[in-house]
């Protein structure tokens, strides 16, 4: 008997993982999410190290070698309407495209969570007032609001980032408000308040830890939309200005080539699509790994 008891006492205790570690493990068992993450990482790394891996200069063209087909010697993915190397421009294009696509979501994450948590934690008339204002922004379809704002502000990278941030802030704030309202009435928050914790301590210790996860997952699902919209604004001529390489703008300037070099003309869109779908699939995987219900 003692031998069995001994064995039980000295049996190795299974180490329990923390929440984020278990999310990472679950995520690593999701093949779709892992492939999506690999694609996103590849595009990001290519953009960061563009000067090292790109075969040519993204701005230097040759008018006698314009619109070469895919696979032409010296131009692995052909050349554009000004004879610039497409592969180089697609690699460099990731820099601006990712920047103008991801930045608005980051900014909106900070501002929207702030507004939402503030409104949700305070409750009462402050909440009602803020949320009614937020409701007004939901009366505009996102594409319309983005184009209206950047149309009024004028073309430019900064203006397009500002417009898209304004589009996403209400959406994130609404999610942040609803999760904070749920957490606020929990017993442990009540207990902390009764034991004398101030509002800042309660928000920092008890609220933030519980609400940032769901808000974060929701925000990652917006990156895909943001990439499409940001490139769309450049496509319309409202974002990045020529001759900078950016996928939306490249898609626009290559429209004249759809009869002569259709494959080359479609390439920038392939990049936008690839990035957008990878972010989407990764976000879906992250959501199920975190078991967050929307």
């Amino acid at each position, binding site marked *: 008997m003692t031998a069995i008891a001994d064995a039980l006492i000295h049996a190795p205790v299974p180490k329990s993982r923390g929440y984020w570690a278990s999310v990472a493990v679950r995520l690593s068992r999701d093949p779709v999410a892992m492939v999506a993450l690999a694609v996103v990482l590849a595009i990001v790394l290519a953009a960061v190290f563009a000067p090292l891996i790109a075969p040519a200069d993204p701005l230097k063209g040759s008018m006698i070698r314009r619109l070469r087909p895919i696979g032409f010697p010296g131009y692995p993915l052909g050349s554009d309407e000004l004879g610039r190397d497409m592969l180089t421009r697609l690699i460099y294009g990731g820099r601006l495209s990712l920047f103008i696509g991801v930045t608005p979501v980051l900014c909106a994450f900070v501002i929207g969570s702030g507004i939402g948590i503030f409104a949700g934690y305070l409750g009462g008339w402050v909440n009602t007032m803020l949320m009614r204002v937020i409701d007004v922004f939901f009366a505009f379809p996102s594409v319309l609001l983005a184009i209206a704002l950047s149309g*009024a502000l004028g073309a430019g990278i900064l203006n397009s980032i500002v417009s898209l941030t304004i589009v996403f802030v209400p959406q994130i704030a609404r999610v942040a408000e609803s999760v904070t309202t749920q957490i606020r009435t929990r017993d442990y928050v009540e207990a902390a308040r009764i034991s004398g914790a101030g509002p800042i301590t309660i928000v920092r210790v008890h609220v933030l830890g519980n609400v940032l996860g769901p808000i974060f997952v929701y925000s990652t699902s917006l990156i895909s939309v943001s990439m*499409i919209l940001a490139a769309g604004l450049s496509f319309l001529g409202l974002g990045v200005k020529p001759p900078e390489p950016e996928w939306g703008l490249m898609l626009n300037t290559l429209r004249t080539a759809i009869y002569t070099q259709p494959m080359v003309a479609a390439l920038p869109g392939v990049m936008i699509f690839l990035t957008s779908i990878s972010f989407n699939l990764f976000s879906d995987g992250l959501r199920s790994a975190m078991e967050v219900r929307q």
Partner: protein
Amino acid sequence: MLLYTLRRILYVTPVAIGVSIICFLLVHLAPGDPLTAVMPIDATAAQQAEMRQAYGFDRPLPIQYGIWLWKVLHGDLGNSIASGRPVLSEVSRAVGNSLILASVATLIGFTFGTFFGFVAGYFRDSPLDKAASALSVFGVSVPHYWLGIVLVIIFSAQLGWLPPTGAGPDGSGNWRPDTEHLRYIILPAITMSVIPMGIIARTVRALVADILSQEFVQALRAKGLGEWGVFKHVVTNAAPTALAVMGLQLGYLLGGSILIETVFAWPGTGFLLNAAIFQRDLPLLQGTILVLAMFFVMLNLLVDVLQTTLDPRIQRT
């Protein structure tokens, strides 16, 4: 029911006022004021001030807003700077074309979306379900303006089956329901339908799966109802939500059609917006956005009331 409808209308009023404030402020977001674009470059400071006074731009913003709103409520959206014509007549002509395109696209998206959603919801985790899920991810991830270009490349540039741009053979600004004009709407409508298709497929799949797992379905089967009879129950239960999603998608498409309309040179509101932005025609920009946003607000209200009429369980407070 009447009381509920009235409460919804009451609730929508502040939203509508908020929308009008945002549209009014849009013009003031722009660098300079709306007159900068029309003012002659060599106008003296005194002449500029005179013009500003004549148009009321020297008054405080709240008063300007009041005057503007009063005019809007009387159907006066101002005149387009580029063409000089009333904004309202320009917008109403374009809205017709956009509405036709968005409706056809919503119909295509709804038909295929519900079909794929039902198949996926009925056969969970089968290869059919996987295919339908992949299709809906494609629908929400694809840059639709690029899809439009790809379709033009395939069906216009390569095969030569369909016209690449425009709404009709005469190059005129209006689409008409005849066989010749029908060829022009096919590509933009298919391009546009991809988004609602994905979203409706996703919604219907979740709805069907949820309904099938409920106890009343088990009870129906237990009392010996055939699969067809059960299917009819599933349809009746899924219909209100599916129709509501369809209605909202119509609104999103109408407001978000600018990119697709630009690709296909479709003479709708998106095309009008594009022109307004690049000619710095701020009254036209403001008027078009106001009309589209108000349309979206009213559509939301209509969908909400209709959905509650069809399914009284979902009254919102």
